[in-house]
């Protein structure tokens, strides 16, 4: 198909940038593991969340040197457990599931932003370098009090 010379230049430049951009995304995803969550491997019966370990006891536990594991349940309209507190510099590995509808799990000011889908367990980690009271909120519409669904994580 015939193309104008200038159009060839234009498309070559555009497509080259596209290739570089996609390479960056791919290397980040597979090479450095900076990837959105996650596989289809952690399953749970969404009607039996309160009886299934570890979600029968939502809690935040220390698992290493300033490393914590937060096992959390999202429900309409809140999160368990409350309250949560970690020292400054702590790395927290969150494991979250839902006991009813689809929820969100977002910590504004960080890159923590995952969907919480019933029947699946979402994993996300973050290192809290600055002290403060971090807001955790639901960013997927889940019902009448969706805008009230929140909790906080205190970093001391």
């Amino acid at each position, binding site marked *: 198909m015939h193309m104008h010379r200038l159009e060839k230049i234009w498309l070559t430049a555009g497509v080259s940038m596209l290739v570089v951009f996609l390479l960056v995304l791919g290397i980040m*995803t597979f090479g450095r593991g900076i990837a959105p969550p996650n596989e289809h491997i952690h399953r749970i019966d969404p009607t039996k969340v309160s009886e299934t370990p570890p979600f029968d006891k939502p809690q935040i536990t220390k698992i290493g040197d300033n490393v914590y594991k937060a096992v959390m349940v999202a429900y309409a309209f809140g999160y368990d457990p409350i309250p949560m507190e970690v020292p400054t510099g702590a790395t927290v590995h969150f494991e979250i599931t839902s006991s009813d509808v689809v929820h969100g799990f977002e910590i504004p000011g960080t890159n923590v932003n995952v969907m919480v889908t019933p029947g699946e367990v979402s994993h996300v980690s973050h290192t809290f370098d600055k002290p403060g009271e971090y807001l955790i909120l639901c960013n997927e519409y889940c019902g009448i009090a*969706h805008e009230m669904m929140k909790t906080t994580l205190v970093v001391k």
Partner: protein
Amino acid sequence: MTDSKLSTFDRKDGQLVIAHVLFAFAALLLGGIAGMLQGMVKGGTISLPANIGYYELLTAHGVLMALIFTTYFIVGFLYSGVSQTLGGRLLPLTKKLGWIGYWLMSIGTLIGVVVILLGKASVLYTFYAPMKASPWFYVALALVVIGSWLSGFGIFYQYVQWRKTNKGKLSPLFAFMSVITMLLWQIATIGVAIEVVVQLIPWSFGWVETVNVVLSRTLFWFFGHPLVYFWLLPAYMCWYVIIPKIIGGKIFSDALARMSFVLFLLFSIPVGFHHQLMEPGISHFWKYLQVVLTFMVVIPSLMTAFSLFATFELNGRSKGTKGLFGWVKVLPWKDVRFFAPFMGMLIFIPAGAGGLINASNQMNAVVHNTLWVTGHFHLTVATSVALTFFGIVYWLIPVVTGRVLTPRLNKLGMIQTIIWCVGMFFMSGSMHTVGLLGSPRRTAYSTYDDHPDAIMWIPYHVAMAIGGIILFAGVLLIIYNLIALMRAPKGETEYPIGEVSDASEPTPRFLENWKLWIALTVILIVIAYTIPVIDQINNPTPGSPGYVTW
């Protein structure tokens, strides 16, 4: 090649077009009222009476604007151009399918709106399971989709008949693009049809206990992304085919226009996972593959940008303008039929750039489900597409009703366009900014117990409400203009179908090889979806019962 002689538009066909356009704008008015109220609630300016819920309004706004306004307008616009370019009138069967489609969609819309306003379906227009709406909400959606299929079949039928009686001839560009648009729609809606008919309707009637949530989301987004191209392609049709005629120029290249539409057909369907990047249940590999396919639409977008500006520049040069940007001066800046779609084109540049951010698997974590995303699609569909559709109204209504656009209405149209751009600057600008700060989308007024982060968002929410009020003034003005156009003085208005530049090369015939394009489309879908969907079915997420949480 294209039929551009001054001829009266078939009156009976005109009625079908008008019926669609009026329904579309009635939806725009209702959706606009809901939108403005939401903005004011979220900004903390008003609170709703106890019997109206914020999320009820939000559901109505989304369904009426994103599904009803767009689909009705698109079907009406495509039927008008098919009538014009494929023989000067609609074939009896096409017209019949158009009307049956219209009534099915209208019955569906009516049931849907009633169910939403009764508060039985505050599930938003994405209706994510396991929130369970009234079964009649899903039935209503199914009727809308089936109605639109019949309208699509009407277009296919007329096109096939035209090709039979015009053997060896290249089909008119408008008709070719209409077929691509409807083909895209038919293939994309298969996903949502399966979700609604196989999963949600039996589940909401209580015939089955549970629903596979991950699968339902995958089926929804199989449809949900091509949906945005279904909105966009008719706007592109105006840009490629109509605008050259309105500015008094020629279409840069017929072949490139067709090629870009073919690429949109190929690359807009196998990409739905980029809406599901932040959720479990799908592996990195399949997400990344679909991200790559998503970005392929950059190519036809760049082709389109090149073609449009080439048309503008060639037009200027043929009128004797000099210098690098001399052609800008001869564009008809005071003609709303050009100005409104042109503002749409211009705004599509930042809108498209925002889309690149959304679809990148790492950056999506920053913006996912924040107001940034809402800001993004208020630029794409609610500005680029909507302003183009508004621009179409100023000649389409006169053409099909045998009237003329008056200078006064042209001026009001210019004002309407400016109001829209200003309102959107405030609303979408604040949405983008506050979204980056983390403010979530789809939430009523909330300070999250006076958390400092959330308090910081409030001024932006107020700016959004101000934008929303300005935009509502724009809705009222376009409704007024539409009614005034229906009562404008009688006269002849030409259907502005552009002609291809003499300098452009002949169009290669493989571009109308539908077997090839459909086969490639199916192959790409099969590659992108087969393995993850089989995994979701064979290895299912434990099922969820339904919940009514509103």
